[in-house]
């Protein structure tokens, strides 16, 4: 069994990686879909045209690569940590994206945003203080 300190450290590193990959993936998908525009509808011809437009976009492929790496990392971390531990911890993404928008892109962040970010961080601290695995029989 992995020593507790190493166990917490490797879980922490993997969670940081998950946050970075999911933030990047969502950003790439968003840029890609905004460039493509609204999907056309449910007819066969429209779906075919949407499919070609989506999978011709380099942004979508960047998003897919980010999300595949996210999936592989998620699979690894779920092999030892609880799902109910990993899920909230990865949601730092919701705090990271507005912070990046504010400090990197100079976007305005409202008081409500700041309150939300503070609550997310506090919630992640609460979850982070619980044992990552509650189902191990070892």
């Amino acid at each position, binding site marked *: 069994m992995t020593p507790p300190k190493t166990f917490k450290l490797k879980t922490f590193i993997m969670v940081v990686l998950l946050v970075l990959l999911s933030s990047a993936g969502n950003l790439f998908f968003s840029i890609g879909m905004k460039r493509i525009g609204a999907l056309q509808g449910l007819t066969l011809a429209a779906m075919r045209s949407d499919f070609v437009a989506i999978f011709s976009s380099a942004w979508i492929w960047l998003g897919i690569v980010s999300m595949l790496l996210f999936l592989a990392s998620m699979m690894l971390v*779920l092999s030892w940590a609880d*799902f109910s531990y990993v899920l909230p911890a990865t949601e730092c993404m*919701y705090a990271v994206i507005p912070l990046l928008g504010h400090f990197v892109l100079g976007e305005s962040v409202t*008081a*409500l945003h700041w309150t*939300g970010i503070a609550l997310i961080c506090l919630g992640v601290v609460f979850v982070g203080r619980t044992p990552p695995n509650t189902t191990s029989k070892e």
Partner: protein
Amino acid sequence: MRTAIALAVLVFAGTGGDIAVAHAMKRLGEVHSFSPMVILRFLGRAFREGWMWVGIAQMTLAFCSLLALLSWEAVSFVVPATALSYVTGALGSKYLLGEQLTPPRWMGIGLVSVGVALVCLG
């Protein structure tokens, strides 16, 4: 209406996919080494697990809903709205995966959910 349906599909299929993958990974056991060969072998074993494919099918459905939602709505609405998956995720991990949701963990999940909702409203 179409946004509500796509959001429901995204939340339920997304959480269902995560829970199925978590179940598959628990069956395989903990990865102790991060050498590329060990990781590749582990991923190879993972893709022979039936639950893994159940998870991937649901994640694919959720992905299609996500793309449709992103083409209709702003990302600042879509991503925070997926925080609804907390409720389904917490219940799924307790009742389907048998995890112990202690009061601090419930408190953390609650705070993150409210925080995400505020970011969405802001």
